[in-house]
């Protein structure tokens, strides 16, 4: 359907219309991109059969934007979900940028729905008004008497399918302020029965992920990497690889960070890579072990912090803690973690007859590789195209500031004769050992209580590796030296904690570190919520009642309190089944509020079994309630699975784990049931891909603490807890 020519036509018209909608330039009219399909605006396309296509600017890694953004278009336009399809947007940050990221197209931080909410509704409403105006003109009636319902333009006794007026509508200038449908009119937003648009192709093998790209005559490239990060290729011998059928050649990457191995197919590439001997120059390689990394973090926690995160009176607060009637204190440590999405990293790159570069990729941040490719191929942006494929998970991994695997593919392609496309494939060992981990992080907390058990002061020290410093995203997150992504969820928590001091010290980056589903909240929520439970216990109070005392005085505090109460109610807080114990935690992240009750059976010695997790979620208006439930279930599983038994460890700089047998995923029997309750809300939608993760591990830890094992270092399986 889409040739390169029509794609460029589409880009041009899309850019023109965006200028109308968002910049306010004079419209030339939203011209049809071709005779067979019309762009009504950058987000809505209708073909001659009346098939409506929502153009999705966020990639789909399972979190639901293909369905969610289509829902917004369908609702405003007035069509049903079985009348709408979707396509992923091309790479064009002028049109398809994430409105929270500036001039940058990308998905992350649970922002897909939040930043698109008004944009896609406006686009759908504009398409509706343009179609109605076209029909009103043809029918010679007043547009105010017309509407679109169920995919038909109706009113004044007439009815017509949308396709009849698409061409005329495309000539009408869109409004800057189309009428958005009232919540009372909504039929799809909030509808429990909406199914995912991508379910059918994901249950019959037809869904196409990056790994499924097969271009004619493509080569498969795998990279022989250094066993320790930072090592360089000094030489290699591929004589044994020449016996592998399908082996083509090998050459060092231009950066010397590995040897690219080219073959006719994946299996040949795997075998040839095994057969190649590489001599490494390890003089600049990482040599430290996990024990040394942990020692550095722990030592930093004992020293004065480099950064006073919330400009607190540190001396005064330390004095208040010292002189408190009672003291609760704990030191925590969180290991490196890999993301390990089901689909290992891959992408395919080709050069067209016109000399354009096309990247086929489950692209989380298309603008990253788009910019990198301009440098690598010395091409202007319009000569580079990114075709976004479905992505087999990410959890943050596909969004590297250095576009790592896309750059790797380009480096493996740029020095070939470019007649054969290059498909770069990582295997699971590359994925587990290839870097980009949740940072190793420590916390030390001292909480003072008065004689009535009230918090009088809270001294909190964090030490860990900054994700953002030294990357292209530094300006996004680092203020006055503080990388907010290391300390988010502490001083900015909705808890009204008196006399809180948060300090931060950056430690050396052991290896490349990266955001991992919920970023800093993966550890800050754990520490806050375990400390809250420990303080409640010291005060002799119920953990829910104790928290509620600090959830006052702000709208955020009220919303956080409400989900805490809802989770407690629905999870039968205080009344577990015979022989079970419960833990609870609540946290705000990415604008959303989630509380979870974890109920477990067994003992840390004989084996803990997670019987049930009950979650309460406030993420504003629930656009697709069932997707929200699914994301909450998945986020809980992700958080709990890693807390139970996963860590990445280094020995002499080399990663010790390699594949799922030693980086064991959560399995089906690990959690017997999850139940999610959604708080009704009229607030604008906020994130849901990540917010279910932060409270999950501390709620589990708080349950296990009832059995007299207080886990302050993860994973739990290495720190005194066995699982059934």
């Amino acid at each position, binding site marked *: 359907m889409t040739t390169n020519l029509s794609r460029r036509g589409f880009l041009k018209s899309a850019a023109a219309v965006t200028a109308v909608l968002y910049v306010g330039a004079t419209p030339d009219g939203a011209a049809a991109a071709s005779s067979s399909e019309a762009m009504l605006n950058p987000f809505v396309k209708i073909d001659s059969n009346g098939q409506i296509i929502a153009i999705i600017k966020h990639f789909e890694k399972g979190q639901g934007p293909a369905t969610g953004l289509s829902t917004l278009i369908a609702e405003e336009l007035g069509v049903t979900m079985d009348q709408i399809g979707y396509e992923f947007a091309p790479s064009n940050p002028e049109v398809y940028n994430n409105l929270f990221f500036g001039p940058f197209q990308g998905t992350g931080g649970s922002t897909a729905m939040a930043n698109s909410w008004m944009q896609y509704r406006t686009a759908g409403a504009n398409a509706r008004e343009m179609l109605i105006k076209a029909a009103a003109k043809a029918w010679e009636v007043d547009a105010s008497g017309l509407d679109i319902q169920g995919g038909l333009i109706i009113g004044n006794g007439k009815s017509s399918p949308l396709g009849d007026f698409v061409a005329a509508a495309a000539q009408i200038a869109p409004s800057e302020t189309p009428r958005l449908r009232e919540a009372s009119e909504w039929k799809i937003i909030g509808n429990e029965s909406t199914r995912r648009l*991508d379910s059918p192709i994901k249950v019959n093998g037809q869904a196409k992920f990056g790994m499924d790209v097969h271009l004619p005559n493509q080569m498969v490239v795998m990279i022989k990497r250094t066993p320790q990060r930072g090592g360089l290729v000094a030489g290699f011998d591929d004589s044994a690889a020449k016996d592998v059928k399908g082996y083509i050649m090998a050459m060092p990457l231009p950066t010397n960070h590995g040897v690219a191995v080219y073959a006719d*197919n994946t299996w040949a590439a795997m075998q040839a890579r095994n057969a190649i001997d590489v001599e490494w120059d390890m003089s600049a390689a990482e040599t430290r072990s996990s024990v040394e990394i942990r020692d550095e973090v722990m030592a930093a926690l004992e020293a004065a912090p480099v950064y006073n995160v919330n400009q607190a009176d540190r001396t005064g607060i330390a004095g208040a803690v010292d002189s408190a009637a009672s003291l609760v204190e704990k030191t925590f440590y969180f290991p490196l973690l890999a993301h390990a999405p089901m689909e290992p990293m891959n992408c395919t790159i080709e050069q067209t007859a016109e000399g354009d570069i096309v990247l086929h990729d489950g692209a989380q941040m298309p603008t990253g590789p788009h910019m990198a490719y301009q440098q690598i191929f010395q091409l202007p942006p319009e000569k580079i195209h990114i075709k976004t494929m479905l992505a087999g998970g990410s959890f943050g991994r596909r969004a590297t500031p250095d576009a790592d695997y896309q750059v790797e593919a380009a480096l493996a392609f740029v020095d070939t004769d470019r007649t054969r496309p290059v498909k770069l494939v990582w295997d699971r060992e590359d994925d587990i050992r290839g870097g980009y981990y949740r940072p190793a992080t420590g916390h030390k907390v001292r909480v003072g209580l008065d004689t009535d058990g009230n918090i009088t002061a809270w001294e909190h020290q964090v030490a860990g590796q900054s994700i953002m410093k030294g990357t292209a995203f530094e300006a996004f997150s680092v203020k006055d030296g503080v990388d907010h992504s290391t300390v988010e969820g502490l001083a900015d928590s909705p808890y009204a904690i008196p006399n809180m001091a948060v300090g931060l010290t950056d430690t050396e980056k052991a290896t490349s570190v990266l955001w991992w589903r919920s970023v800093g909240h993966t550890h800050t929520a754990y520490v806050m919520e375990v400390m809250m439970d420990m303080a409640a216990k010291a005060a002799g109070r119920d953990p829910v009642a104790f928290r509620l005392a600090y959830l006052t005085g702000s709208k955020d505090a009220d919303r956080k309190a409400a989900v805490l109460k809802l989770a407690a109610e629905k999870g039968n807080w205080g009344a577990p089944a015979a022989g079970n114990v419960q833990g609870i935690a609540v946290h705000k992240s990415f604008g959303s509020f989630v509380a979870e009750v974890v109920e477990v059976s067994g003992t840390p010695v004989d084996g803990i079994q997670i019987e049930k997790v009950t979650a309460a979620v406030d993420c504003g208006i629930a656009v697709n309630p069932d997707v929200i439930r699914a994301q909450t279930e998945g986020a809980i*599983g992700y958080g709990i699975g890693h807390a139970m038994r996963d860590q990445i460890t280094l020995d002499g700089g080399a990663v010790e784990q390699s594949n799922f047998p030693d980086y064991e995923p959560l399995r089906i029997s690990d959690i017997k049931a999850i139940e999610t309750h959604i708080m009704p809300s009229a607030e604008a939608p906020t994130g849901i891909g990540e917010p279910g993760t932060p409270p999950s591990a501390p709620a589990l830890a708080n349950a296990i603490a009832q059995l007299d094992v207080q886990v302050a270092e993860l994973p739990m399986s290495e720190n005194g807890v066995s699982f059934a």
Partner: protein
Amino acid sequence: MAISLKLNGETHSVDAEPGTPLLWVIRDELKLTGTKFGCGVASCGACTVHMDGEPVRSCQTFIEDVEGAEITTIEKMEEDKVGAAVQQAWRELDVVQCGYCQSGQIMSAVGLLRENATPSAEEVDEYMYGNACRCATYQRIRAGVLRASEILEA
């Protein structure tokens, strides 16, 4: 060497060296990409196909061992009574998230239901243990198998 491979009811002559995993013949040679590569060590189940009706991990099933066997992949499940019921249940419950592991999940679920038409939740967990899902869609997988059992019993 040339090997005769019976796949989804058709016989293919494929040129593959002994030791080549069935997975890569299906994906790279026959271009049927519904069967996925996840770990390569039979630890995640994303590559599950049926060999004479029984689920096997195609990443650890070698081409020389499948000659004469009937191999079936996810692409053929719509025509299978149990497969169609599992797919229907998966759509009804929106089991999928990223979807990358789900071909393998469905192939395993079909294997279970052929063996045990009315499994308990515990039996589902036991049988499906080796199929990993990093999105953690497990509770919908469990519910999906039980729902497919209902569909088949009706």
